[in-house]
């Protein structure tokens, strides 16, 4: 009897050990796979998600942007300080007191079916965006009236009111799509654009293997590349389960570049690897917490101030971000935006005693309980959310963390169904426009539900100025109100780290994770030594 028992037990043990080994190895390996990165005529880029939308006007995930940016031109690109620089457009100007805006575009850019990229395409695109209210661009062009092509290379926009943010917004955010292709669809917003792509970037999408890879082939001539020819024959995006496996693949030479910004811990280890090179890119956005000011007790200024005083900002930058972040001075005009930054802005002081005092003043001396939502897939926020919770606890505020799956998180944010919203904006480069969306009454991304007439007035004043210098004063006053009223608690501005194989050179750096070194100009010029 006993040997049978022992054998059963050993069998049970072996089965459990085997299963555990499988679990451990699966966790360690994650998604795996294909070859790549060996040839100098091809660059293999790692990403952690599939393309969800091939329609560049609709898609807004990072992977969507990385792939469609290589296919559909925008009127403008931006330099490292967020200033607009020519791309499809060669020059632009306002006229008639800011109620007209004119853009001249290149005459040498062509769609992959041979037709020229023309002013008609620009007019078609903006009309479709305005009419069908497509994506974030629609929210940015509220002053748009109409557009007409003055010639094949000139467009004139008529605005319903003077708007100094219009050209910057349309220029950078709106991808131009081919009218002769997208125009055939009954609805541009619903056009999936998931096959037979007609594009005008340095590379065209030719092959899709969902969950595996996206292959883009070189397009010639491409006027923004040296000698009209992108250096590489092919750009391949490979999909990985997570950033750990991406970096393993980069170390093994399976891929040449990781498109995602590396979490600070991984960035440190990659910096010590001589087979790899890292690139530091500043963010044009910020990480923040927004308090739902329409919901008690967050409607009380003292409660919001108490929450702000309970945060150890330095610890967040030092520990959660491993030093890869700078202070925002608790202002929406972060130091990265040099032309807008207000030097008098000061970071909220971490002061637990003050937080308790404010809480008592607000009638919550016994403490209070709030919940905070965040996207559980965002590694940095998931980390600092824990520090915010622990800091608030010392001040007598219990913050219940709700790390949510992305779609649930986005839905709760859109429905303003939260106490505290922890998140980050990727690009907030144009304060008059961005603050309008984020803080004006009913703004598209006004998650804090702010409705402050004085703030609205100042933002509107700034938006009406066609000269950025004239917009500076009202926008700085608006930023001071946002900070004083704690409508937004801007925590830090991140410094992103990207990694690529040491043999690669020629990348053109752009700010933000959306552009970084995975942008059309950069991949048209990249080469391997």
């Amino acid at each position, binding site marked *: *009897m*006993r040997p*049978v*028992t*022992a054998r*059963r*037990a*050993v069998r*049970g*043990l072996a*089965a*459990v*050990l085997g299963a*555990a080994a499988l679990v*451990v190895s699966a*966790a*360690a390996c994650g998604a795996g796979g294909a070859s790549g990165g060996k040839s100098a005529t091809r660059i293999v880029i790692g990403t952690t998600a599939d393309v969800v939308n091939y329609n560049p006007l609709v898609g807004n995930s990072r992977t969507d942007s990385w792939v469609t940016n290589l296919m559909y031109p925008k009127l403008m690109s931006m330099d490292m300080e967020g200033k607009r620089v020519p791309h499809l457009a060669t020059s632009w100007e306002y006229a008639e007191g800011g109620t007209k805006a004119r853009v001249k575009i290149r005459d040498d850019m062509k769609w992959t079916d041979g037709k020229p990229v023309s002013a008609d395409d620009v007019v078609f695109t903006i009309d479709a965006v305005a009419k069908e209210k497509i994506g974030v661009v629609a929210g940015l062009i509220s002053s748009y009236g109409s557009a007409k092509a003055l010639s094949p290379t000139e467009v004139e926009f008529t605005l319903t009111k003077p708007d100094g943010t219009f050209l910057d917004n349309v220029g950078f955010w709106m991808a131009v799509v081919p009218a002769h292709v997208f125009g055939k669809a009954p609805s541009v917003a619903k056009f999936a654009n998931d096959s037979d792509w007609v594009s005008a970037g340095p590379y065209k999408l030719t092959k899709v293997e969902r969950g595996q890879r996206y292959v883009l082939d070189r397009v010639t001539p491409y006027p923004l590349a040296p000698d009209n020819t992108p250096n590489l024959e092919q750009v391949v995006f490979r999909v990985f389960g*997570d*950033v*750990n496996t991406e*970096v*393993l693949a980069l170390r093994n030479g399976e891929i040449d570049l990781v498109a995602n910004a*590396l*979490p*600070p*811990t*991984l*960035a440190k*280890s990659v910096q010590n690897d001589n087979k790899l090179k890292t690139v530091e890119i500043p963010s044009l956005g910020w990480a923040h917490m927004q308090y739902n000011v329409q919901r008690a007790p967050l409607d009380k200024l003292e409660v919001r101030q108490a929450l702000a005083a309970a945060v150890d900002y330095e*610890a967040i930058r*030092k*520990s*959660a971000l*491993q030093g890869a972040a700078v202070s925002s001075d608790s202002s929406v005009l972060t130091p990265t935006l040099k032309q807008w930054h207000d030097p008098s802005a000061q970071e909220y002081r971490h002061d637990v005693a003050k937080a308790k005092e404010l809480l008592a003043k607000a009638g919550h001396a016994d403490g209070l309980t709030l919940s905070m939502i965040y996207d*559980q*897939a965002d*590694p940095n926020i*998931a*980390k600092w*959310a*824990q*520090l915010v*919770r*622990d*800091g608030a*606890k010392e001040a007598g505020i219990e913050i*219940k*963390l*709700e*790390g*949510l*799956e992305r779609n*649930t998180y986005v839905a709760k944010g859109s429905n303003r169904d939260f106490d505290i919203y922890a998140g980050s904006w990727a690009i907030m480069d144009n304060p008059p426009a961005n603050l309008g969306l984020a803080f004006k009454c009913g703004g598209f991304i006004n998650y804090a539900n702010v409705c402050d007439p004085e703030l609205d007035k100042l933002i509107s004043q700034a938006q009406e100025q066609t000269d950025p210098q004239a917009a500076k004063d009202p926008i700085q006053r608006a930023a001071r109100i946002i900070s004083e009223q704690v409508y937004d608690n801007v925590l830090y501005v991140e410094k992103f780290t990207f990694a690529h194989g040491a043999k690669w050179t020629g990348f053109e750096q752009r700010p933000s994770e959306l552009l970084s070194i995975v942008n059309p100009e950069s991949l048209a010029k990249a080469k391997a030594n």
Partner: protein
Amino acid sequence: MSVETATALPPSESTAAQTWRAFRRNPLGVAGGLVLVALALVAIAAPLLADYPSGSSDDVLVGPSAGHPLGTDDLGRDVFGQVVWGTRMSIAVGFAASVLAIIAGTAIGVAAAYFKRLDTALGVLVDLSLSLPVLPLMILIAALVGPSATTLIIVIAAFSWPEVARVVRSQAMTVMPQQFIAAANVIGGSNTWIIRKHVLPGVAPVVVVSVVMTTSRAVLSEAGLSFLGLGDPDNWSWGTILHNAQQSGSLTTAWWTTLFPSVAILLLVVSTTLLSVAYNDARNPKTR
């Protein structure tokens, strides 16, 4: 007559004593039991063993050392403290989910065996539930409802009861034809009384084994869901430690952040398996 039959049966203490004697002779089973007791003690005595890991420190990703026997994580928090406090959460969630699953599974299993008219319908329900893709559904529900300990307990219990129901029904089917059941019916015992006094004691041994195995599976499910980021972010569990390691990118650079919680999970699963195998063998006269 029925009273004489009942008193003629060997006393239950005797069976228990025989089972206990046989169990003690199985070293792996005893070891499994001891490990489980040790884990339970760690869970109960967590506040005495380690401070609750919170905040941050400058000792980021420091390997095992005298100050931090299991190293620190990417925020400089003690991994030993996380594993100790994680034991409490993992076992609590596992046990609570298991108890819920056992109650539901036993009720449905016994009902199916006792009430013949319900057998087919409940059988279909159990088969249907067993055929569902459990992990994706667990992920879906946990993601939609939002992460919390309560969510985890309910989600895990909701997908664990069918196996219990099937095992309990099989055992109850062997109890039903027994003469003492027929006799209890003859003397006019109510259904509730018969189930309580005769059927439930008959299925008790498999329920005991099920409690242990379901807890083990529930702990694994909790670890899996937490690893995927669907755990309770306000409490440490073994899966949460693994999730943090994966998310922070220290999975491949700081082995201690993943090894120790994995070992804890392994210990619990192995010990419950050994314990239940040993108990099963010990109570079965053929393998005793």
